[in-house]
């Protein structure tokens, strides 16, 4: 279980997140909703260690954990970025296997095998030798998911997973997210798409801008 206690984040003296506390039970899906500028992306960036927080703390199974300073090789938080941020100079296969190879020091055969299994369930089979520019938006997103999963994170976060996609693909994304939940993945989904949020959420967190 991920517990967040009294999280406070400011930018240049302006408070963006003010003493926010919530928790995410294992294998559940938390959706974070709220208007533009409410600090949803900022919150995800704090959780994933991309922003230093001003106060408060993160606890995983009651163990304090600092995503910003975390220097171990273990991946605790995986992130699917709003604009995916696939590495354009690497093939789909290399995008997914780069970190397991370099960081987890797994052998090539194992990571490739894992990646191919992941591609099969994300309907990416046959795409492994393509480069990101050769993929559709939905395919890029699924590669981004595969890349995050390859590090076996305890929690997977998504920033606006439906915003870059055609509306018809929303159903696909929610199917993937629910499928990962069946496998026991804990997930945090930021969105301002209420229908989508209601569809996937076990728990919902509303955030609003601080005056």
């Amino acid at each position, binding site marked *: 279980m991920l517990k967040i206690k009294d999280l406070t984040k400011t930018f240049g003296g302006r408070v963006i997140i003010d003493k926010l506390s919530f928790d995410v039970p294992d294998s559940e899906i938390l959706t974070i909703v709220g208007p533009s500028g409410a600090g949803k992306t900022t919150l995800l960036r704090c959780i994933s260690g991309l922003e230093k927080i001003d106060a408060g703390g993160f606890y995983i199974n009651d163990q304090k954990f600092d995503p910003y300073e975390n220097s171990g090789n273990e991946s605790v938080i995986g992130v699917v*970025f709003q604009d995916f941020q696939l590495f354009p100079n690497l093939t789909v296969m290399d995008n997914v296997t780069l970190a397991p190879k370099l960081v987890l020091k797994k052998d090539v055969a194992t990571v490739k095998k894992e990646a191919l299994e992941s591609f099969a369930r994300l309907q990416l089979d046959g795409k492994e030798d393509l480069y990101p520019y050769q993929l559709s938006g939905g395919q890029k997103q699924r590669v981004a998911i595969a*890349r995050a999963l390859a590090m076996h994170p305890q929690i997977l976060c998504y920033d606006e997973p439906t915003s870059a996609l055609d509306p018809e693909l929303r159903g696909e994304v929610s199917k993937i997210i629910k499928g990962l939940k069946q496998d026991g993945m804990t997930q945090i989904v930021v969105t301002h798409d209420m229908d989508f949020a209601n569809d996937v959420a076990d728990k919902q967190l509303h955030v609003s801008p601080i005056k």
Partner: protein
Amino acid sequence: MFSLHYISEILPSLLSGTTMTLKIFCWTLIGALPIGMIFGLGLVSKFRPIRYILNFYVWLMRGTPLLLQLIFVFYGLPIVGIVFQRYDAALFAFILNYAAYFAEIFRGGLQSVDRGQYEAAKVLRLSYWQTIRKIVIPQVAKIVLPSIGNEVINLVKDSSLVYVIGIGDLLRAGNVASSRDVTLVPLLLVGIIYLLLTAICTYILRRIEKHFAYWR
């Protein structure tokens, strides 16, 4: 005088001049490219003093003529007791000068890599150097290649500036023959050889650019 016989007579000296030109060209690239790359990383580093020092260096090297730098190193520095051989002076000035241009090009390339790429690498727990090696350098290489190519072509021609410190390069060989024999032929040949050299460089650079064309 525009005879095959005359040409074959002066060709050996022109070719030995070409060898000197190529030596300066190659050593300058071998020295200036890695230094420029490291200085480029320094120009975007978070550490302010490094940025200030490197910006000053780039400003100095790009803001003054290469010719002045050559003269300064070879004729100027001995006045304060620092003596270089001609050839060493030429390489020293050329490498320092070209490293500044390359550093500025690499700085631009590094800055055009999306911040999100570093963040994606960070959440995947790649180290700084792993990120630089596997993600940043390949992307920067592709971005900077055309500008580096321009400088490489410039270098072929700039190398003729070593003339001023008395190095026997291609231009000097041509000029010596031309004034000795009172004919334009050596100078025309020199022009043709420079054209050939730049054409070869252009061809090689195109091939390298093509090599990087497998992704966008």
